[in-house]
């Protein structure tokens, strides 16, 4: 049988890989990809808990996951708009070269 731990381990791996991508990619869209991966591992955790954990209302985890997906999609849209706007002015979305402002 698959147990809760199985699911959580996969979630932890995906989250860490997503974190690495978000921190190391130079392309802003690449950073966004890492964040999407992190959000997905969150959803995996939520679904796993919703399935296995004895709770007053086991459905809450699933509902939460639906909302996370919604917000993630909206996030991608705004991030794309920003990337396009920045590219139009600067001809690059390399996060390392966007240094008008100091980090």
């Amino acid at each position, binding site marked *: 049988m698959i147990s809760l731990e199985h699911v959580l381990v996969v979630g932890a791996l995906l989250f860490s890989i997503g974190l690495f991508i978000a921190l190391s990619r130079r392309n802003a869209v690449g950073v966004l990809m890492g*964040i999407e991966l992190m959000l997905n591992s*969150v959803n995996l955790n939520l679904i796993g*808990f919703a399935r296995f954990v004895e709770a007053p209302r086991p459905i809450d985890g699933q509902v939460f996951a639906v*909302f996370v997906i919604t917000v993630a999609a909206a*996030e991608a849209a705004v991030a794309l708009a920003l990337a396009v706007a920045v590219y139009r002015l600067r001809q690059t*979305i390399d996060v390392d070269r966007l240094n008008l*402002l100091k980090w």
Partner: protein
Amino acid sequence: MRPDLNLDYALLVPEYILGLLALAIIVIDLMMPKIRKDALPFITAGGLAVAFAVSLLYIDTDDNFAGLLSIDDYTTFFRCFFIAVTFVTVLASAQYVQTHLRHPGEYYSLLVISTVGAIYMAAAQELLTAYIALELLSFSLYVLVSYAKMERRSNEAGMKYMLLGAFASALLLYGISFIYGASGSTSYAEIAAAFEGGTEGFTFGTLIGLTLIVAGLGFKVAAVPFHMWTPDAYEGAPLPITAYLSATSKAAGFALLLRLFSGALMPVIDDWQFMLAAVSAITMALGNLIAIQQRNIKRLLAYSSIGQVGYMLMGITALSPEVSSALLLHMTGYVITNMAAFTAIIAYHNASGAEDVSDFRGASDRAPLLAAVLTVALFSLAGMPLFAGFLTKFILFQSVADNGYFWLAALGVVASLVSLYYYLTVIKEMYVSAPPDSFQQEGRFRIPLIMQGAVIVLTLGVFFVGLYPAPLFELTDSVAAVLFTS
């Protein structure tokens, strides 16, 4: 399916008004291009005033909506608080938006929508609602920060803010998933019930979850080491939005933290106090030290606001009814002071285009009123007697020390002294340095009446809180008590 659910929509009327207002602004902007230029901010302000008045009807209500929101005095307090901040921001924006920005309708309507997010962050008694409200506020701010899209810095700031904000949300959510796993619920009350056994029910998984939640929310309120976005977003954003960021986004973060930690995590207080104490100490030390080197007034205030976050985190660390009341009092004083400072800077910027500290030289001759207001505000931020900052900080530090964190309060006093130094450099520029040569031809700046009125009212507020705090203190006392009764 829960039959006992309270779905009384009448509890949410102020937010309906705000939502309708936001839509109305966009429609007016679209349909009536002639009146929109001058009238929009005033229509917005009028709608906000109505929402404010309606919010007052809910004083002494003690109810909840579907177990998701509490409508109690705490919520009423923050409803009035956030609506008032938006009101001031809208009025302070009027001239700036006309000269610098496009799409004024969307600008004002996003400000109004973000207020709804901020209010529900304070009202939420459940993690999912709190999270969505947080995202509502954050999304509006991402867009508003990058609103000056012809300007490179604004775009770049918006992109960095957005990517780091989304990153922080992911950390927060991962933390929430662990807390949900450990307690089986997202409701604050049920989480508290699950942790009732104290440290015994507290596993390593819960600790990691809690750490990630603190990291995620730390990003949103700009606590060190999660503060990297703050100076950039502050510098790149249009000035009124910088003011709004420093007030609403911080206060909303703390409103959420206060409700979360007092409502859900009180039983395991021994397990997280050390963590917040450390974050608070680093935040006030680093924020104030880095502020010394800043030459841009927005960046300077950004780091100063990071320092202020350190003081406020103290209040979460030593969580108790008295400390919460002191925290609310300090937050109110800080926001009034900060709005006064920023409104003066916006007015000065509108007239001169100034952004660097050196541009403020001779401000006492060029714009005596603004220089005086800015001086009052900066002294208050530094915590000088007579002004709001002294009294609220004194009460906060004292109650924190009384609750076993004397060293943290002592560090806060030292950090305040450091902050006095960099505030004084600004004041020195304004009063000691001679105005630039162009002053002879240009003469004094003309400041619109509405800005003059706004800065004078806010300055009176600073003195009022500083000299006669009793009414406000009683108010925050009763508001904080709500958090600890249930």
